[in-house]
């Protein structure tokens, strides 16, 4: 008698491995090389497949799903064009540390390298835009590789991982290998999560001794899980110190708290940026000194001692030298700092702290987000204030596209909890917000999910209206339509003599009719006093809605730190002229 035939094909093994990794949803698009996987999906009902209309959108949807749940987002695309279409999404996920598994089809192993039909060197192309990638050459390695890929994607600093799957590997048969019971002991990849306790003590000492402290907190705290945000709030309140969040960190600390200074950086608040500039101790937790934050490096917070807590050693001393570096997971580091703080009951210099807060309050009193109200036209800031008024007591999630509207959303919407705000920070991908919102809505079917969009960005993945129609995902697209690539126009106004080269949004579609054509609901608003009614109707409608809000075309986003300038060289409004932009700054982006 023959020994027992392994009964399972590679494709079936793959589906089983995904289920064992707690996957519930896959965002994908079929094609020849992945037909065996689609066949396996057809024969089961544990995994849900969401059919997008473009592979880039599949990755953004998985990002939205991942960022709003803390789970790994999963993508399935075919070989060649399917894989290359996913590249923008993968790069986006890499820059913003989002855990993604992207399964790509590949031509059969014996054809690799032959310029076969729909062949692309997917591992070659995606090597620089993934945390890691795999080409599975034998079905015997398939299940194990999938489990390892999930471990790599979610551990340490999260990121996207590609698994390239030749078609013969999907059709060959093998026994299943279950995921390792204990968290995988990878041979070479073992990120350090536990912080060095001596350094934690040093940090507490530095923090307690500060006279003008500021917490500078980023996306790493969100990556670390909701517990990190709880601990952060606890620790920050214990100290009584001011805190600012990066764009990626919004929601890590409650925006309504008195200690919160708002976002910092290029379009951050006056008070946050001046606090960063003038502080004597900076406590960076899970932020990466991005150039949108530091501005001119030589002038960045010149007088401060800097503490940096980060899980990725390559984030340390990359652009800014710090005085104390602590490698580890934000949750564990915060836990330890709270413990040490409680045990030591350090005496903070309350007099100095009071003076520091008094100074900060004078900055706050500048009310840097104030804008001239619009009369007959809707100011984009006003639209967002009204939007926030209507959603603040609902269970809501916000995504954005990229541009001025994104920055205004960061400034005018308030985030009280982590995982409620998804935006493309590092790559700045126009077209991110709508598919990301779909992914969020899949994960949170009853929540209110809104993509704050620009009229230019939304056209980059508008085809997904078909997806939301198919699954009746009640995603709301709130377009701040200024008829310009506003962020581009703003730079041209400030830096290029007002020569608006190619930044006018010509020949826009009628967004109301467009929504209608796709089976969604379209609304339009151009009068400030009608806006509340339109927003209410949008929220009330339990279907996908596109709202075309016609806003002031000339409005610019302030405050703004022009490229190459320092935190204390901020432009606060249209009357501040950009004489401050140096030649050096002109070459920066």
């Amino acid at each position: 008698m023959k020994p027992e035939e392994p009964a399972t094909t590679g494709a079936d093994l793959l589906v089983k491995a995904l289920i064992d990794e707690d996957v519930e949803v896959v965002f994908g698009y079929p094609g020849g090389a992945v037909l065996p996987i689609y066949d396996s999906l057809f024969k089961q009902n544990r995994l849900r497949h969401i059919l997008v209309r473009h592979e880039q959108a599949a990755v953004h949807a998985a990002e939205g799903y991942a960022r709003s749940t803390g789970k790994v987002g999963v993508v399935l695309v075919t070989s060649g064009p399917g894989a290359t279409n996913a590249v923008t999404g993968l790069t986006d996920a890499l820059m913003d540390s989002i855990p993604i598994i992207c399964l790509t089809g590949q031509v059969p192993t014996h054809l690799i390298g032959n310029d076969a039909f729909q062949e692309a060197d997917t591992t070659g192309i995606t090597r620089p835009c993934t945390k890691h990638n795999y080409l599975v050459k034998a079905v015997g390695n398939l299940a194990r590789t999938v489990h390892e890929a999930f471990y790599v994607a979610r551990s340490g600093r999260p990121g996207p991982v590609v698994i390239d799957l030749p078609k013969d590997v999907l059709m060959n048969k093998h026994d299943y290998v279950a995921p390792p019971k204990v968290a995988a002991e990878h041979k070479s990849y073992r990120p350090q999560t536990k912080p060095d306790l001596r350094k934690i003590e040093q940090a507490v000492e530095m923090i307690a001794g500060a006279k003008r402290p500021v917490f500078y907190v980023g996306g790493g705290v969100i990556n670390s899980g909701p517990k990190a945000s709880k601990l952060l709030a606890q620790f920050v309140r214990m100290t009584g110190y001011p805190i600012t969040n990066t764009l990626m960190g919004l929601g890590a600390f409650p925006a309504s708290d008195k200690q919160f200074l708002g976002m910092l950086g290029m379009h951050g608040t006056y008070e946050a940026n001046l606090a960063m500039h003038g502080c004597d101790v900076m406590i960076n937790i899970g932020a990466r000194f991005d150039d949108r934050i530091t501005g001119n490096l030589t002038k960045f917070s010149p007088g401060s001692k800097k503490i940096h807590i980060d899980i990725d050693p390559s984030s340390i001393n990359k652009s800014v030298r710090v005085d104390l570096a602590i490698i580890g997971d934000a949750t564990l580091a915060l836990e330890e700092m709270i413990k040490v703080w409680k045990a030591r009951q350090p005496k903070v210099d309350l007099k100095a702290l009071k003076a520091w807060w008094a100074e900060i309050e004078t900055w706050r009193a500048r009310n840097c987000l104030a804008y001239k109200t619009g009369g007959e036209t809707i100011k984009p800031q006003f639209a967002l204030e009204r939007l926030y008024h209507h959603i603040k007591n609902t269970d809501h999630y916000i995504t954005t596209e990229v541009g001025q509207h994104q920055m205004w959303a960061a400034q005018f919407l308030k985030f009280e909890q982590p995982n409620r705000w998804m935006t493309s920070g590092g790559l700045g991908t126009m077209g991110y917000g709508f598919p990301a919102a779909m992914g969020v809505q899949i994960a949170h079917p009853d929540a209110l999910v809104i993509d704050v969009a620009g009229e230019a960005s939304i056209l980059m993945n508008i085809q997904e209206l078909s997806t939301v129609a198919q699954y009746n995902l009640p995603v709301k697209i709130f377009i701040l339509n200024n008829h310009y690539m506003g962020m581009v126009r703003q730079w041209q106004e400030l830096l290029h003599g007002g020569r608006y080269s190619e930044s006018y949004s010509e020949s826009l579609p009628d967004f109301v009719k467009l929504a209608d054509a796709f089976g969604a609901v379209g609304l339009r608003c151009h009068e400030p006093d009608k806006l509340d009614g339109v927003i209410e109707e949008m929220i009330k409608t339990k279907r996908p809605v596109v709202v075309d809000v016609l806003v002031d075309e000339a409005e610019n986003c302030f405050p703004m730190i022009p490229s190459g300038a320092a935190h204390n060289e901020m432009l606060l409004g249209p009357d501040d002229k950009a004489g401050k932009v140096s030649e050096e700054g002109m070459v920066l982006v």
Partner: protein
Amino acid sequence: MNAPAEIQSHTISVLVANEPGILARVVGLFSGRGYNIESLTVAETDAKESLSRITIVTKGTPMIIEQIKAQLDRLVPVHRVRDLTVEGPHIERELALVKVKGVGEKRVEALRLADVFRAKVIDAKTDSFVFEVTGTTGKVQTFIGLMESLGVVDVGRTGIVAMSRGGEPL
């Protein structure tokens, strides 16, 4: 704080899983991030564990060198990264094959020089030699330089392999 920092040369040993694409990952990291590669060698050194050792000589400011090491260490198949330049005394060696074509007095002089540099003749024809020379990069370069006038027609070099002094493994 950000005073112009001096450029230093560092020799870095990297122990990696010997798997397809690993060299592309390392080289891609250097080109993608604009780091320098002065020399790079790679070969399997532990067949049982399927490990390869990559030796890289690179140049940069102290901050860049620190980044290079952190970036290398973050690659999933990288087991260990060691900066031999900062970790104490170490030895560096390079091997070169040098083909010299010539007759008469030049040929005799080439042999004489080879002797001084303890280079071996590993191929000989009536009008040519191939020498094998080993040593520090400086010695190899000097040898090739001296041979230049005697009719060098071809040079092949391995790049640097390096190891710490003393009994400790990588």
